[in-house]
């Protein structure tokens, strides 16, 4: 806003700016064919999902771990901050309610574990289409899940016990539990390759062989058992692979690993960061032996999704904490100084390799980028998951329900009717008290209402802002704040007319300068409240704070772009300038208080 010079304000231009603003918001509404606000849980219901923790032998997880999971899910689900989802614990389950129907996809993403690891690649191998299949597993096209590479399919992340046609693990001993309990302890809850090898006769190693391997610290590749009976024994499965420094047990897993079968890709594995790991690429095109994780998800300070400069590729940008940054620098330096394929650092999410880029130079400074065929949605989701940390538990969705509103329609209608009655009362009061000026007051409220409505609709469709009952009540209260702004201004105009005996046109300008300061300071207080609440609070409070900040901004817009220029225009009319009895600026009102002789204006101090 330019400072209005005291005599030469251009009210017409200012009003045009306002008109442009309203048209822009209205145009957006029409273009998006969105005419009604999106409503929150309490007004329109939504989707309720029950998550059950997946634990060993179905023991209930400790309370503090559940609480941590609840908090992380709550932060993730309210990642956008203004949709007001609810998260609550129910026994050892977690119940999430998200406004709007058909949100189960969103909840699926909220409930994924998101354990992130950065591991140096030690060995890798392209997945071959198996010859003379011993299994009947169909080979999926490698690009089968390329559309959502970063999204671990939680329906695929079945545990061994649910794998076996629903038979609980406790009663059915796994026929093929690998004897190398030590190496696999971390992956017990996961469908280890060994477990899925039950279909392949002879795939299990004899314990004796395993022990031999364990004792031979320097296992030669040939000592590694051939995990695939279909390959001739003479063929060395690790030909051309530098096996130096690889834990033989992990190498054995690596050899058995059949990434062509999607069920084997180990998604949802809680891979132990302190151990080496054999894993698959998301689309199954490669399998890897990976070093211990030097950098993990907890080293991340914040994550955000964005488009890489100069390209159209979506990436997830990571900022590490100081310790993480140092480790990241070390890890990339080590990779940079290594031979192919050890010059790659794999990004492992929930046990699956999202991407394993070559390190072309050491990366200091604590920033990293993850690429991997993201689109905007998947990049944003992964960033949100990483930002709020990994879940300490794995969850299954045990039920998904569409639920109705918690308040019932009667409350919403009651609130709206009451709000309208209240507005009508305000209109009547303004007209009685301010007469001609009351018209300005009423029109200001109308403009504020239009702006608020369009803003809420546009934000609902573009930022998932959902209106709930408290917001509506907050908007009703903001009527008072908006009204106050022009009341302050009107009273100032009266003062100016009394004291300075100025013409109305001059008084309008001088009063504005003084009223403007009051309005801005008072609105700043509301705005500070809104900002603090938005950034520090959670869930419902954040949405409310957002609404509060919005109405405060709208108040300022209305006063600056409508009330003031409109009065400046009216001041040119005879009706007001000459103080018509109905104008609200009549002689009676403007008269000095003669009867009591007391000073009514403080300016005589």
């Amino acid at each position, binding site marked *: 806003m330019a400072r209005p010079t005291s005599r030469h304000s251009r009210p017409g231009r200012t009003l045009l700016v306002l008109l442009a603003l309203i048209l822009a918001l209205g145009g957006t509404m029409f273009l998006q064919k969105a005419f009604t606000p999106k409503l929150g849980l309490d007004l329109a*219901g939504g989707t309720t999902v029950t998550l059950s923790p997946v634990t060993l032998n179905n023991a209930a997880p400790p309370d503090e771990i559940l609480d941590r999971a609840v908090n992380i899910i709550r932060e993730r689900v309210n990642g956008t901050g203004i949709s007001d989802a609810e998260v609550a614990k129910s026994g050892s389950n977690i119940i999430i309610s998200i406004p709007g129907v058909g949100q189960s996809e969103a909840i699926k993403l909220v409930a994924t574990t998101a354990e992130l690891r950065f591991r140096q690649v030690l060995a890798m191998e392209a997945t071959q289409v198996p010859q003379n299949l011993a299994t009947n597993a169909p080979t999926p096209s490698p690009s089968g899940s390329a559309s959502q590479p970063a999204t671990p399919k939680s329906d695929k992340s079945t545990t061994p016990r649910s794998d076996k046609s629903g038979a609980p693990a406790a009663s059915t001993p796994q026929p093929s539990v690998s004897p190398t309990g030590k190496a696999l302890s971390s992956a017990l809850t996961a469908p280890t390759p060994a477990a899925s090898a039950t279909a392949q006769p002879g795939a299990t190693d004899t314990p004796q062989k395993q022990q031999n391997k364990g004792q031979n610290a320097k296992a030669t590749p040939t000592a590694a058992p051939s995990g695939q009976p279909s390959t001739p024994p003479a063929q060395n499965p690790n030909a051309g692979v530098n096996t130096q420094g690889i834990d033989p047990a992990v190498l054995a897993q690596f050899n058995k690993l059949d990434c062509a079968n999607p069920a084997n890709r180990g998604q949802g594995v809680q891979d132990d960061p302190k151990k080496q790991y054999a894993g698959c690429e998301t689309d199954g095109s490669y399998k890897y032996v990976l070093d211990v994780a030097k950098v993990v998800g907890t080293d991340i300070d914040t994550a955000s999704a964005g488009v890489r400069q100069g390209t159209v590729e979506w990436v997830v940008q990571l900022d590490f904490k100081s310790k993480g940054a140092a480790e990241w620098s070390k890890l990339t330096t080590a990779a940079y100084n290594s031979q192919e394929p050890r010059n790659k650092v794999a990004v492992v999410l929930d046990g699956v390799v999202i991407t394993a880029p070559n390190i072309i130079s050491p990366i200091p400074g604590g920033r990293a980028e993850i690429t991997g065929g993201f689109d905007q949605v998947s990049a944003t989701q992964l960033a949100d998951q990483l930002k709020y940390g990994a879940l300490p538990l794995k969850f299954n969705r045990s039920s998904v329900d569409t639920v109705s509103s918690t308040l019932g329609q009667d409350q919403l209608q009651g609130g709206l009717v*009451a709000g309208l009655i209240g507005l009508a009362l305000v209109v009547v009061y303004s007209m009685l008290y301010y007469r001609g000026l009351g018209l300005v007051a009423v029109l200001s409220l109308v403009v504020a209402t239009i702006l608020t409505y369009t803003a809420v609709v546009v934000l609902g469709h573009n930022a998932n802002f959902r209106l709930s009952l408290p917001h509506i009540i907050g908007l009703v*209260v903001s009527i008072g704040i908006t009204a106050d702004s022009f009341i302050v201004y009107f009273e100032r105009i009266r003062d100016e007319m009394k004291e300075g005996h100025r013409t109305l046109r001059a008084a309008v300008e001088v009063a504005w300068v003084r009223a403007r300061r009051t309005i801005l300071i008072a609105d700043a207080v509301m705005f500070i409240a809104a900002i603090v609440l938005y950034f520090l609070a959670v869930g419902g*409070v954040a949405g409310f704070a957002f609404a509060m900040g919005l109405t405060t901004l709208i108040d300022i817009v209305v006063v600056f772009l409508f009330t003031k220029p409109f009065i400046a225009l009216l001041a040119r009319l005879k009706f007001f300038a000459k103080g018509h009895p109905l104008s609200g600026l009549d002689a009676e009102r403007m008269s000095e208080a003669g009867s*009591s002789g007391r000073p009514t204006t403080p300016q005589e*101090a």
Partner: protein
Amino acid sequence: MGLARRLYRGEINVDFVGQWRLWYSLSGILLLISIAGLLINGLNLGVEFRGGTVFSFKSEQATVQTVREAVLNEGAHQAIVQSAGTGGWRVTTESLPENTREQVQSQIAKDFNTPVGQVSVQAIGPSWGGEVSQKAWIGLGVFMLAIILYLSMAFEPKMAMSAIVALIHDLVITAGIYAWSGFEVTPATLLGFLTILGYSLYDAVVVFDMIKEVTAKLGHTSKMTYSMAANNALNHTLIRSLNTSLVAILPVAAILFIGTTLLGAGTLKDLSLALFVGMIVGTYSSLCVATPLLVTLKEREPKYQAIARRLASTGSGKGPKGSKSAAVAKG
């Protein structure tokens, strides 16, 4: 009519500041009653804060109304009824003791023709649990600090302190009313509190802005003490304060009226009560708590003490005695 006319013409002069003893004792009594209520009764926290019991069952003929009645008749005090999926129902109540749980369960089974075994009962934890509340408290603390800083810069530290004290005064009294009435405190209520918080400050800021403007003119030769000047400023903005409060309270009063008469119990009633009380108290505190407090603080400053002494010796230092001042001394 005479009063309204004088109000209309801005000729009213109430001695707000001079009556500080009255306001302080009135507020003191209100605060004591409120704190007593909070200590004796405590707040009736809703399911969202304390967790509760969830009943789920399937029934084709149930409606929100019949389900709510069935549950409330069996001793539950709060019931959130939702339809879930096709023909399914979810009722969330406060945490019920075991015998009440069983009563509700069998009542539902009887009323809606389902076997008792088909009515599942689960405990549910708070969706606004400890961590959320803790964050809210931290937020409140940071907010107050930010406001003190901001008002100290925009006005002065003493005004900031007075405004915050008035704010706490409003919150405690509103909370006290909840404690005594036993109305349920839901997240919606909490948001009502937050609105009051903003509104109360807003009101005080507008009043202080005028006081600052008027008292800035005080100097060695002025004919007014700080008290008199502040009181003048108050009277000057009185018409604005009353107008604004009226305009803001009218819609809230409409919601409260409709919420309590037509809709029976519900969120609307809880919320509008918080706002209605809070706004009235907020208007009162801007005029009768924040300003006298500010004057008490400011009159200790040597500059204003000097003015007061000088005026007292010349005998003109008597505060303005507004005719009929008591008649309109209600904020």
